[in-house]
């Protein structure tokens, strides 16, 4: 599974929506994720990929695609080290 698919699964499970509705352009509002859903998803993703997503960064995510891109870049960086 790609990083994007794994994150999509997590977000869909936590927000209780069908994963097919989540596109890179979807906002958390589109997905009907409340603030606790978002935090829970962040924590789950942090644990899965063993990365840290600072709150300042997370607050700037405009949509699902921003979230995925950030995680992809962090994971790529971690792999290089």
């Amino acid at each position: 599974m790609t990083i994007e698919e794994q994150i999509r699964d997590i977000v869909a499970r936590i927000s209780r929506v069908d994963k097919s509705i989540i596109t890179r352009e979807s906002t958390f509002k589109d997905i009907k994720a409340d603030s606790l859903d978002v935090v829970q998803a962040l924590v789950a993703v942090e644990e899965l990929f063993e990365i840290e997503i600072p709150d300042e960064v997370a607050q700037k995510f405009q949509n699902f695609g921003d979230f995925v891109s950030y995680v992809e870049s962090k994971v790529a960086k971690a792999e290089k080290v």
Partner: protein
Amino acid sequence: MELEEKVSLVTGASRGIGRAIALKLASLGSRVAVNYVAIEASNKTDADDVVESIARTGGEAMAVEADVRNSEAVKAMVEQVVEKWGKIDILVNNAGINRDALLLRMSDDAWDAVIDTNLRGAFLCTKFAVRHMMRQEWGRVISLSSVVGRVGNAGQCNYAASKGGIIAFTKSVAREMGSRNITVNAVAPGFIVTGMTNKLPPETRDSLLAMIPLQRLGQPEDVAELVAFLAGERAGYITGQVITIDGGAFP
């Protein structure tokens, strides 16, 4: 049994009220992680004794060492429990200390030690344990407050502040976690016979007794019964509450 298949973590469970809670939860079928801190050697012996008592009656328990003030240690403890039993259903924030002095004589150290253990400890344990409860959409967090957290007590401004803090913490986290079917409550014991209250001079004990309509000091088992009720399925619609258990002294 009511708590069959459940996994509980009780902090400060080597002695006193924590011990009684661990034994009670185990008697209802829960597997119990008995937390202690290795500050005094006797704590480990006492925790092992609780584990053995549970094993003797056919229950399952393990001793887990962690200083609840230490974030990394708490995280590791929660992971240890989840690794062994796959989950955490019930957290009892019981670990607590007191270092009494009148305000003008209270050292910074006494203030920090009590707030760190009683309040920061509950914060850290809850933070790491609820992650696992959120996933399964079932959980119970029960924290030990105290009647002095409600009414105050001369000579205990640090302890009372920590226990009042537990009440506000409980009410806030209950609001955050409701949507995940996690209930968060506090119990506020009055004068319970433990190592902490045994240090009181006899005159103080007598004057306390005179304030209690039920005319006896509480036993750790009295508190354990209440905690066990809140931990069970039957208390599923109770959250954000502080339940006083003090023989009627401070209604």
